[in-house]
């Protein structure tokens, strides 16, 4: 009798899981496994079908200078975007958490970049960066008399120009999480510290920041994923150029798979991206988790 009930619960449980599982398998697990399998085959062309070539694609990847270049670019992109956007997000969240005139408006203003589609945003920034008559050049030209710049057309600045757009886009999004977390911190803690005579900095560093750690972990993981995922604006701003100076890994995967139609090599690069992302996520959970203070 009892075992029958357990069995029924078991069936029940699986039935409840089924819809989510079907979608997860159809759109995540099966494609990932297929990608992994495809990376060991050659690209099928109309007149030649795919054949097993072992690790050839991986060897090619290892000796592909563009792959290493986009990997480095991605590293710089991550270093450039993650700390800055998180720091900005905390500052903005602290600022709009205070009582200030027009608080709703300021919050909305900070959040606006998140709501706008990245492609539309990129087109606006393209105008900002345009040499000669773009917004930045008009400002620097009339204020300091600087000559026309070419931020997107110079390999030394193209990636940085992309990083700035990304930080602008992301900081507002992360701010929302910090704002929610800040409002969940009991005021009594802060009041107690004030009675003890703690300054504003001490309160932030010793109370607020540690209590924000779970949010920081969450935001960090998102920021890392985003630094590999956000490439839409590159298509508009630089198209990866000049000479791949602003291409990121995912952008390169798209280019290989859907412009060059080398789907097998695209699959190989995707496996590299997946491996990298899983390593990063695992690392973050295990290393970071110890320092996180959960209530």
């Amino acid at each position, binding site marked *: 009798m009892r075992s029958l009930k357990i069995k029924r619960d078991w069936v029940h449980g699986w039935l409840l899981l089924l819809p989510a599982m079907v979608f997860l398998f159809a759109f995540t697990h099966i494609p990932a496994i297929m990608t992994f399998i495809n990376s060991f085959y050659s690209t099928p*062309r*109309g*007149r030649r079908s795919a054949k097993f070539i072992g690790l050839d694609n991986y060897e090619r990847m290892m000796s592909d200078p*563009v792959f290493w270049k986009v990997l480095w670019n991605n590293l710089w992109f991550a270093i450039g975007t993650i700390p800055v956007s998180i720091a900005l997000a905390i500052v903005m969240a602290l600022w709009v958490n205070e009582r200030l005139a027009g608080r709703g408006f300021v919050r909305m203003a900070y959040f606006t970049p998140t709501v706008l589609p990245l492609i539309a945003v990129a087109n606006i920034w*393209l105008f900002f960066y*345009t*040499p*000669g*008559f773009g917004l930045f050049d008009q400002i620097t030209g009339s204020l300091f*008399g*600087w*000559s*026309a710049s*070419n931020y*997107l*057309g*110079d*390999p030394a600045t193209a990636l940085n120009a992309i990083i700035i757009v990304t930080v602008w886009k992301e900081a507002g999004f992360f701010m929302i999480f910090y704002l929610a977390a800040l409002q969940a911190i009991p005021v009594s803690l802060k009041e107690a510290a004030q009675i003890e005579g703690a300054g504003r900095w001490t309160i932030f560093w010793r109370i607020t920041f540690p209590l924000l750690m779970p949010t920081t972990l969450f935001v960090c993981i998102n920021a890392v994923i985003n630094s590999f995922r956000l490439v839409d604006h590159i298509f508009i701003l*630089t*198209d990866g*150029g*000049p*000479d*791949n*100076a602003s291409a990121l890994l995912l952008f390169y995967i798209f*280019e290989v798979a*859907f*412009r*060059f*139609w*080398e789907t097998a090599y695209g699959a190989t690069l995707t496996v590299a991206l997946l491996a990298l992302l899983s390593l990063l996520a695992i690392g973050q959970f295990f290393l970071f988790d110890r320092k996180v203070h959960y209530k």
Partner: protein
Amino acid sequence: MLKSTLLKAVAATALSFSTWASAHAVDLQFYFPVAVGGKAADTIQELTADYVAANPEVNIDAVYAGSYQDTVAKAITASRGGNPPQLSVILSVDMYTLIDEDLIIPFDDYLTSDEDKAWVEGFYPAFMENSQTGGKTYGIPFQRSTPVLYWNKEAFKEAGLDPDVAPANWDEMVEFGKMLTKKDADGKVSQWGVRIPSSGFPYWLFQGLTTQNDVILANSEGNKTNFDDPKVVEALQFLVDLSQKHEVMAPGIIEWGATPKAFFEGQTAMMWTSTGNLTNVRNNAPFEFGVAMLPANKRRGAPTGGGNFYLFKGASEEQTQAAVDFVQWITAPEQAAKWSIATGYVAPRPATWDTETMKAYTADFAPALVARDQLEFAVAELSTYQNQRVTGVFNDALAAAITGQKTPEEALKEAQAQADAVLEEYR
């Protein structure tokens, strides 16, 4: 009473006839890209509707498929999914890719009568170079263009140049450019002499320079490139020198999309861009402008560009026949004239230019003739097997040289080696 009964009977017959016709209609799906202003899409839809109105036994579903890139991606994906369009306009340079993917069929099997064969002969030969290979015709030219030089007549006057004369050769372009470049005491430039955009697909305009330097970038089998030829190196050195040595062009990568705007704003006195921009410049330039053929060096020269019609595999005999018929209709003089005037694309058949519509248009707006006259000197746009990848390698090399990371020779040598590695299996 009798009249109304009769009318009803006629109406009923007509109705049943039309349902019968539509039940037997041939359905065609047709993908088209738009690379220039919004009017292009409307014009294609209009022309398609006209054709369907005149040929009720055919239904054409004209699908706007995005940019050229999007359209080829969509067509390839749809074909792999077993649902290919019957007809699509795709870049002429994607011909080898589509053959390699085994997705298209040549027009020849459907153009068997003498009349049809004469029709194929009736296109400008410069456009057919990118449309035929191995003795077969895979593409029919439709939205084709070629780059030309636009110049600001007022700026020329201001610099003491004859406003009606464009530079005829490279030396004159540099010389004029020096006179046209306005620099203040700090070295800040408010107007550049010339602008040859280099973002995205620099190879296209660069091919103007290589052709003028009398060298061809790829063979007609599409399996061998010529990137490290000394004449190509020389052409690239000239492009680099324009900004580095002669200082008549802005340094770094120059954005393609912002080029007409920079021209309107007086940032540059001359620009190289597609004839597809002609209508745009005509409507927006706040000054008098001229249009000329690209300057010559060893010879005159320019690439062609733009899209062709392709027939896709997997269609029924009837569908393909209908598609061919539609292509013949839309490239016929009257339709092509309408299309050319709406966009600035070069009408692909000489006959179009003899129509009354076209004559009236060119009498009013002579620059439209420049592109046509340049066709005599034009060559096939760079196109090979695995075209996107090979031109991608070439674009990277050009960008590296333009931004000074590599010397032209070094960059082109590397590009040639990479292109060889890709194309080896097609030889």
